């Protein structure tokens, strides 16, 4: 084996001197080029979480209904009736910034494979997207590319894209965020694990052939983007959704076969990561022969084969002697399958090329051996001035009608129909509440049950106060689910931050995680899977800290759900919760006053929980006609949306104890707007009293206009035009 201590080389691979020393300790010798490359990708932040590991331990991740927490390809919860839900969210930020179409497309491919690797049928996708300033030409290019990429890949594989969010802010100008969440359904007995064990068992590579695309993608994703990042385009993979579709169907045929030992996605860091993780989970070793790997191009060297991130590939480990049976399944679907090695019991990850040993590494050192970085955070000084907001210096609009139309028509508030119409959100016949509401709802066939899904995260709140922002991300996700009548059950999170080696960024990460953890504890939604995307910065400027919370909730009977649309004239409109004079970090402040300042709204998690309980109980008892989360844009926007969706007007009269702009556009937390038949009001009041939640009568569903106090008087048809962007 060739010695390879060349400073230039390990620097090029983003390894530190300390890490290099550690590698030598593990190997008891110098690593060679291939080994060094393998350590480099496996020890990148993307694969190893070396910077975030100590913080991720803060997340609560167990509950009676959690069958699989973090550590596998996806988390799993029990939903009763012998069924489970698998879910995970993942980022594909860096590739999408360089090549938006393929970046977004392959992001879907990867997360979908994580789900069916667990033996679950992928049944839903959600996309949480962040772009730069809406009017910037580059934003338009990236935005269209990402939407087209999602549409191209997600539609073809027949998994409905049912929800998500799209937010524009200059903070993401150089670093867009593309986070994709996938949800799968399976019977309990069908769950597969990504494990390699049993000496002599066969390791089979299935799916697409291995090519030179995406080499070093994981390392690339763990550094800051710069002017020359465009040159990294070969590190972006190319997606083939048709192969993925075949791979889904073929792999799901592996369920219930007693000779299948483990199934694993070949994702970031390619064969290196998928193989060593399987071995590490099974306390096994692997002996791999690279000449057996089906290749797309001639002359690929071992280094390239081990690090290729060619898409649409999986690894399956099966009991010895059953190779022919596996081949038959994959032949039927027109997919390659090749035995590339066998399981050993020496704990070594041995790679050969025509018999010659190319790399020989303790599997565990590669998968779990990275020296963890314990860092210290520091609150950025700039927050002292950013958090200061003197409302007496903020002038109130003269014309509130104009102000409402301006906020409603702003890029973050307008209808996202133009986006989600590009996605097939109905395939598989489960979507009972379509995109465009607080959450999507999918029924579970053969039962009365349904699941509700959402993603949430407000980067601006987290920038102003990451602890509060983290709590709100969870609280709002849970509120979205509760508004539809579902009990929030579990979280998958994607932590999008800047360079954690900087104290202030690390502080943001730490505070956000503390906030998320606390909220997850109170709201009983353990974090069962997730992903960390750090180094989202360019030219020294980091994105707003943006934890995205994906959440699933359970509905016992899908007849008991509630949409946001006002349904009946003369229904009462009531507010659960309280309006406070809080304008910090609001859309109103940004759109009307061009300020991103102040403190985000306060949140009391116990009050939040109580509000959600009232709403869920009222929906279950069929008391209410509509429910809508009151969040970004405040009361006025939430009312406008319920009017538009229901094509009905509303007459609102609220006692104004606070500034009019705070009343209409303030983003106080823990509020839900309900409409209700007057005869049900006393029953609702009883429930609200039981949980000590304030109930405020706002007005009636009436006429064709939205009228609020003497401030707002606009036809719903006009609101709709502005909201749909067709004015």
């Amino acid at each position: 084996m060739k010695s390879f201590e060349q400073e230039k080389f390990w620097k090029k691979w983003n390894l530190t001197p300390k890490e290099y020393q550690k590698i030598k300790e593990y190997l008891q010798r110098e690593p060679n080029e291939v080994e060094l490359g393998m350590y480099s990708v496996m020890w990148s932040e993307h694969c190893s979480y070396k910077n975030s590991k100590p913080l991720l331990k803060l997340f609560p991740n167990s509950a009676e209904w959690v069958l699989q927490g973090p550590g596998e390809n996806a988390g799993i919860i029990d939903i009763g009736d012998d069924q489970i839900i698998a879910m995970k969210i993942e980022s594909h930020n860096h590739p999408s910034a360089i090549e938006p179409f393929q970046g977004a497309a392959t992001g879907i491919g990867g997360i979908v494979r994580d789900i069916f690797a667990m033996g679950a049928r992928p049944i839903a996708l959600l996309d949480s997207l962040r772009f730069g300033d809406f009017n910037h030409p580059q934003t338009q290019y990236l935005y269209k590319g990402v939407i087209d990429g999602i549409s191209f890949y997600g539609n073809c594989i027949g998994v409905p894209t049912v929800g998500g969010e799209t937010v524009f802010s200059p903070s993401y100008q150089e670093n867009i965020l593309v986070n994709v969440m996938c949800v799968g359904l399976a019977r309990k007995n069908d769950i597969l694990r990504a494990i390699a064990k049993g000496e002599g068992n066969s390791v089979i590579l299935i799916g697409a052939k291995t090519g030179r695309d995406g080499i070093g993608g994981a390392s690339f994703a763990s550094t800051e983007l710069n002017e020359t990042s465009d040159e990294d385009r070969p590190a972006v993979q190319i997606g083939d959704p048709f192969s993925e579709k075949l791979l889904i169907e073929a792999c799901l045929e592996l369920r219930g076969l007693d000779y299948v030992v483990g199934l694993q996605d070949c994702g970031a860091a390619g064969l290196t990561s998928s193989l060593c993780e399987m071995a590490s989970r099974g306390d096994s070793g692997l002996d791999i022969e690279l000449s057996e790997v089906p290749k797309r191009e001639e002359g690929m060297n071992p280094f390239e084969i081990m690090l290729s991130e060619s898409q649409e590939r999986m690894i399956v480990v099966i009991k010895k002697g059953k190779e022919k049976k596996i081949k038959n399944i994959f032949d039927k679907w027109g997919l390659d399958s090749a035995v590339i090695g066998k399981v050993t019991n020496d704990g070594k990850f041995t790679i050969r090329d025509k018999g010659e040993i190319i790399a020989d590494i303790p599997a565990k050192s590669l998968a779990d051996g990275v020296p963890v970085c314990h860092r210290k955070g520091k609150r950025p000084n700039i927050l002292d001035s950013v958090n200061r907001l003197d409302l007496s210096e903020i002038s109130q609009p003269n014309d509130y009608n104009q102000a409402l139309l301006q906020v409603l028509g702003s890029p973050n508030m307008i209808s996202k129909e133009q986006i989600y119409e590009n996605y097939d959100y109905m395939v598989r016949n489960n979507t009972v509440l379509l995109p465009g509401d607080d959450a999507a709802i999918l029924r579970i066939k053969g039962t009365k049950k349904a699941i509700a899904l959402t993603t949430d995260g407000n980067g601006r709140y987290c920038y102003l106060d990451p602890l509060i922002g983290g709590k709100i991300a969870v609280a709002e996700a849970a509120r979205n689910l509760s508004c539809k009548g579902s009990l929030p059950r579990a979280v998958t999170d994607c932590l999008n931050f800047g360079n954690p080696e900087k104290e202030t960024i690390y502080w943001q990460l730490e505070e956000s995680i503390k906030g998320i953890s606390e909220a997850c504890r109170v709201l009983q939604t353990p974090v069962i899977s997730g992903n960390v995307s750090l180094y989202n910065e360019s030219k020294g400027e980091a994105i707003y800290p943006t934890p995205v919370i994906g959440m699933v909730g359970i509905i016992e009977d899908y007849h008991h759900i509630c949409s946001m649309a006002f349904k009946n004239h003369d229904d009462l409109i009531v507010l659960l919760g309280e309006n406070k004079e809080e304008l910090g970090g609001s859309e109103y402040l940004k759109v009307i006053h061009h300020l991103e300042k102040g403190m985000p709204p306060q949140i009391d998690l116990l009050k939040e929980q109580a509000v959600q309980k009232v709403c869920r109980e009222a929906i279950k008892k069929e008391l209410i006609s509509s429910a809508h989360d009151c969040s970004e844009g405040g009361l006025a926007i939430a009312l406008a949306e319920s009017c538009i969706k229901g094509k009905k007007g509303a007459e609102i009269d609220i006692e104004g104890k606070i500034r009019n702009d705070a009343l209409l556009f303030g983003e106080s937390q823990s509020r839900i707007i309900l409409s209700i038949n007057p005869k049900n009001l006393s029953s609702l009041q009883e429930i609200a009293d039981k949980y000590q939640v304030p109930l405020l009568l706002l007005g009636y569903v009436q006429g064709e206009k939205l009228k609020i106090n003497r401030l707002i008087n606009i036809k719903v048809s006009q609101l709709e035009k502005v909201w749909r962007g067709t004015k």
Partner: protein
Amino acid sequence: MKFGVIQFPGSNCDYDCFYALNDVFKVEVEYIWHKQTDIKGYDGIFLPGGFTYGDYLRVGAIARFSPVMSVVIDYAAAGGLVLGICNGFQILTEAGLLPGALMRNNSLHFICKYTYLKVENNQIPHTYSCKSGQVLKVPIAHGDGNYYIDEHGLSLLIKNNQIVLRYCEENGEVTPKANPNGAVDNIAAICNKEGNVLGMMPHPERCVEDCLGSSDGKYIFNSILNFIKNSKVKL
């Protein structure tokens, strides 16, 4: 009564068709793998939606060479009942069982949304139980649904009453605004001259239960089922 749903590589509405027939309408149904060359014994054959062969080359262009298609052609020639939905429609035009072609939507984007359809011809098995002029609310989900046929071809379609469904407003008015993809003459579905083969871009199998937002797709399924029940001679 027994139906067959063809599974091509890349079909993704096969399961939805199967589910609608089996679970909602409670009739016997089987999957037919695309390499199968015997499709005897079925009362109707469904070509489901999806992205056969990834839509590579041209939508439906590769699937039409699947071994099963030659027997589908024979089956149709013998008067067998065939329904192609979305990608199934595209394959039927590529296979020459239906005239015209399906091009990229004029917006150049995939579109998924509910549309309204006017029943223009209720004299074929697939619309047998619909009223003439009835308006159905049925979703579309396609990138290539822009039906094209030249003027001469269109005049033949009209003359032979082969236009079965047109995109319309909620009130049944056929307008340019109601046309989601640029299809010639707002065409959403056409049949062959004999009326036993129907191709339609909208997805009736996606709206057969109230909980899904519309159950108007039932009119298509019930038409087929009723027709078969009532026809004395088995097709």
